[in-house]
Structures are given as structure tokens and as C-alpha cells.
């Protein structure tokens, strides 16, 4: 199963959104929304459908990227 770059970028934006806090949250939310809009445009589907379709793939991407566990303070 090939994961397009735009989906990987969407996952990266979501990961950053999840594990930021405080004042960073607004900036990361904007970045995620921009990535979602771009991914939906490239996939030719609605943002709503895309979010639901790739939700499960986010966990796979996290494992493949061997991302650190969220900090204890988060």
C-alpha cells in the first residue's frame, strides 16, 4: 500500500497538532487545516471524507516513522 506524500504531510501536521500545547495550538491547527485542504484537493474528495478515511493510517504512519512517545507533560 503506497502512502502519497500529501497524506504523510497531513499525518505530520496532525502529530504536531496533537502534541503541542498552549499558545502553539492555534498555529498548529492552522497548519493542519491547510494540510487537510491541500490533501483533499489532491485526492479529489471532501475534507470530511478524507479525515475519516485516513484516520486509521495515522497510527501506521506513527509506527513506521518511529516517532517518540508524547512527552509526559503533554
Amino acid at each position, binding site marked *: *500500500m*503506497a*502512502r*502519497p506524500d500529501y*497524506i504523510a504531510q497531513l499525518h505530520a501536521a496532525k502529530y504536531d*497538532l*496533537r502534541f503541542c*500545547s*498552549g*499558545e502553539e*495550538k*492555534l498555529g*498548529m*491547527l492552522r497548519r*493542519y487545516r491547510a494540510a487537510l485542504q491541500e490533501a483533499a484537493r489532491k*485526492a*479529489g*474528495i471532501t475534507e*470530511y*471524507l*478524507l*479525515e*475519516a*478515511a*485516513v*484516520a*486509521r*493510517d*495515522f*497510527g*501506521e504512519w*506513527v*509506527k513506521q516513522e518511529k516517532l517518540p512517545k*508524547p512527552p509526559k507533560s*503533554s
Partner: protein
Amino acid sequence: MNRAPELFPIDSITPLEWAWVQDLIQEVQRQELGDAFARNLGEWDLAVRQFRKVEYRRIILGSPTEDDFLHHAACLHALLALGNILLMETRKFSDSDLTALGIARQTVAAYVAELEQSFREWHHGISETELNAVREKIFGGTP
């Protein structure tokens, strides 16, 4: 016996002084309201962070069961309800009051929007058949 001199002779209490006392009381009430709001927001934030930890372990990285999804939806409903109430509560305060409390209205809104995003992606009512068709289109297969 001599009467002690009055500290605040009745004659000298003017409407201005009453206004000053009332302002002082209102200031105390405002501070109490602000402190209570900041405390509630802090507790909500703690609950959101704990929810995210469990969500990450059970839903994102784990193999979630039907029960996990039911709990996930229930928690999101509750956190969203409280988050929206807190967001409305921010309207009772001026920007400078919120700044003094270390709170930004837009940040609270962003936390609520992030919870809404989670709800959309996991509790949408779109059929698996439709989702698989989309996954086929994106990935060339179903994950």
C-alpha cells in the same frame, strides 16, 4: 465617659465613598470569577491531556474494540460540551483580564476545534464501504 471619636463619621460618608466600596467588592468578585474560570479551564485541560494519552495508546496505536470507540465518543462528547461552555465563559472577560489569567480566547477555541476534529475522523457515520472506496483511490488498497 467620653465617647471615642468615630473613625468614619456618618456625616462624612459620601456617595462617592459608597461607590468606592462597591467598586472594591466588584473587583473582588471579578477576581474570584477569574480564578474560578482559570481553575476550571486548567482541570479541563488536564482531562483533555489524559484523554489524549489514552486515545493515543488505545485508538491510534492499539487495536481498538467497539467498547473503546464507545468510550472514546462519550469522552469526546463530554470534553466538547465542557470546552464549549468554557469558550462561552471567556466572553465574560475582557482580553486584558484573560491575559492576566494567562489565557487566550483563541487558544481555548483551538483546543475545542481539535477535539471536534477527532470526533469527525472517528465518529462520522460514513459507511466502511464508502471509506474503503476512498482508501482504494488514495492508497491503491485498503489498510
